[in-house]
């Protein structure tokens, strides 16, 4: 069973690193979490993204949700906002696509063109 002591230890460990990244402007990953997104599988996609962030220790990536953006047929939709760059919209994302997006786009700045909305709607 997880204990409160463990939580205390996490707190102490995290406090030491927290100040280091206060003024970093990081990447924002936004995922559609309305009925359409959830029904299409947004939950496992978001969890896969979080697991990758944890695995690679990416401290400057923020995960957030949004509502329905009116493209339900393309859900799960993931938007990546990098500072100084144009927003990239990925459609019909699944956990394995999400892992590639984190590894290539978020970590190496290489947009995964084949999953973007531009490619999908051609």
């Amino acid at each position, binding site marked *: *069973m*997880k204990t*409160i002591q*463990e*939580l*205390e230890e*996490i*707190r102490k*460990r*995290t*406090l030491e690193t*927290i100040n280091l990244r206060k003024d970093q402007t990081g990447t924002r990953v936004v995922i559609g*979490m*309305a*009925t*359409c997104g*959830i*029904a299409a599988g947004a*939950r*496992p996609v*978001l*969890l896969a993204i*979080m697991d990758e*962030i*944890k695995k690679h220790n990416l401290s400057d990536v923020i*995960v*957030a*949700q949004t*509502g*329905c*953006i*009116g493209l339900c047929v393309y859900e799960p939709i993931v938007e990546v906002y990098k500072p100084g760059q144009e927003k990239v919209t990925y459609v019909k994302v699944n956990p394995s696509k999400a892992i590639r997006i984190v590894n290539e786009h978020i970590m190496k700045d290489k947009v995964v063109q084949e999953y973007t909305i531009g490619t999908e709607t051609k």
Partner: protein
Amino acid sequence: MKELSLHILDVVQNSIAAGSTFISIGIIEDLKANLFSIEITDNGCGMDKDYAEQIKDPFITGRKSRKVGLGIPLLYAACKRCEGDLEIESKKGKGTRITAWLKHSHIDRAPLGNMADTIKILIVCNPEVDFLYNHKKNGKKFDFDTREIKRILGDVSINEIEVLSWIEEQVREGLKSLNGGADSL
């Protein structure tokens, strides 16, 4: 939806959109009465009575982008399919309570599914909102309260990855103990 926990994730989004700062999720599994009930209570902006009565209809929605909203109607359909029902109580300016119940043993009742994932996602996307989750089953009880966790964490944010992993395990293990070591059904 394939899991009741996905319905919960979805319906709680309404509470978040209503500007709630505190959302309570209560699940009671009463095997004697053959009942699976889900209660979601928030302190959001609420609705007036007429409107609250209408929102089971998919063509009544608060969203501005489109004329259809399926969150509540889908949960309502899931309840109806399983000899249950859904009730909405709301007071403008005070908050809303959604109570959904289903026949526990009904063949069409979706499993609860992964509540740990649902709770984790609610927290990561809404770190400023407080969540209380309690789950009762056969006289046993599991409670989870983000207010307690935030008190212990102090200056550390609740959506630090390590904290979230701790929360996920906490919920998973808590529910397992309700089910005598098995995952939720």
